[in-house]
């Protein structure tokens, strides 16, 4: 029961941070359960997937109600990523895991630097006309200022292709969707970071569900381990979603830079160890 209590407490933090930056929280939950608490890695991953879905479900209603999560864009990228996952192995036929780890670590380091640059040199948001011919114009009310921000998703086709490739290699690299979704939306497609993190949080429920069903059907999911994790992230994600509304986009961007740097470092270490 002590382990369950530790898992519950840590999951509050994982859910809070995960919903804030759009990564779900598996980054925290899996090592906690497997390394610190001694659970089998597969059991930890299965419980973490339930936690990621619960994080998304807990935070998304607020993001959807306030119009921050761009569901249409999110669903487009979801289809691409899932198709990429279905076509699994295409990339693996051409690149080995070691090369992929190196490429991905360099890419994430580049993303982190680019986002840092954007914080120091904020771009003037382009004026988007209401009669913009693209199908991906949207708007939201920035919660910290009350101003309406109209934006357009750029490079929709390249963004969709990146999601396809990301879905294709994520299993091989062992990375979740959020760490790819947020830079794709924010850096490549020029969607505001607030929309990128909230849309990514919304997307995570669907992607994690497809994986969780497999663990559930194969009997690898321990519901008694999933219970404290899910309860913790439900509490944490609600707090994270509320906190997110009071943080500026610069702070959100900085938080994601930290996440990208951690992933880049761990991928590089994996490259060295393989």
């Amino acid at each position, binding site marked *: 029961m002590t382990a369950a209590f530790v898992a519950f407490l840590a999951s509050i933090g994982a859910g809070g941070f995960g919903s804030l930056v759009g990564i779900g929280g598996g980054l925290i939950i899996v090592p906690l359960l497997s390394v610190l608490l001694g659970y089998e890695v597969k059991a930890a991953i299965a419980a973490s997937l339930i936690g990621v879905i619960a994080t998304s479900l807990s935070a998304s209603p607020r993001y959807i109600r306030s119009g921050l999560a761009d569901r*249409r864009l999110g669903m487009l990228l979801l289809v691409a990523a899932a198709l990429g996952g279905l076509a699994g192995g295409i990339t693996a036929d051409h690149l080995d895991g070691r090369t992929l780890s190196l490429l991905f670590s360099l890419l994430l380091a580049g993303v982190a630097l680019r986002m840092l640059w954007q914080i120091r040199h904020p771009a003037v948001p382009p004026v988007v006309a*209401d*009669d913009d011919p693209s199908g991906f114009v949207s708007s939201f009310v920035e919660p910290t200022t009350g101003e309406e921000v109209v934006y357009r998703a750029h490079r929709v086709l390249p963004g969709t292709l990146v999601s396809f490739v990301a879905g294709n290699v994520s299993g091989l690299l062992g990375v979740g969707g959020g760490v790819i979704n947020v830079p794709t939306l924010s850096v490549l497609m020029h969607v505001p970071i607030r929309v990128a993190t909230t849309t990514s949080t919304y997307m995570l429920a669907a992607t994690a569900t497809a994986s969780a069903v497999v663990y559930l059907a194969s009997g690898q999911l321990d519901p008694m381990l999933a219970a404290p994790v899910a309860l913790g992230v439900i509490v944490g994600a609600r707090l994270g979603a509320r906190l997110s509304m009071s943080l500026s986009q610069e702070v959100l961007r900085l938080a994601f830079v930290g996440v990208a740097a951690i992933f880049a470092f761990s991928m590089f270490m994996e490259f060295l160890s393989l």
Partner: protein
Amino acid sequence: MSGARGPLRLASRRGAPRRYTSATLTGGVALAGFCFAVAMVAELLGADVGDGAMTDVATVVHGLFALTPWAWATAGAYAVVITPVAGLLVTAAEYWRVDDRRTVLLAVAVLAVLTISAVVAILR
């Protein structure tokens, strides 16, 4: 609004239907939270944890009436897994009502591709 151009399209995004999807997700996570909480409290009170195959619905239902923590935690896991699917169905229905067929198509495509992904992974 599927054929809407320009201002109408942006207007439709501003007025995108949100209420029922949001309510579905909130309801699902509340139900899951309740089930998980019952499981944890029952375990704390010393109830026999119970066990079984998660796919054996009869055992799970029996366990719910017997207040076994395992059955309630399993019900919570089911609620978590089913809610995103329900959310996508409700999203499709909401956009269908405002005649935004492209978004309906996207929601259905997400459901279809994810279902195929899960089935393929289980069969592997």
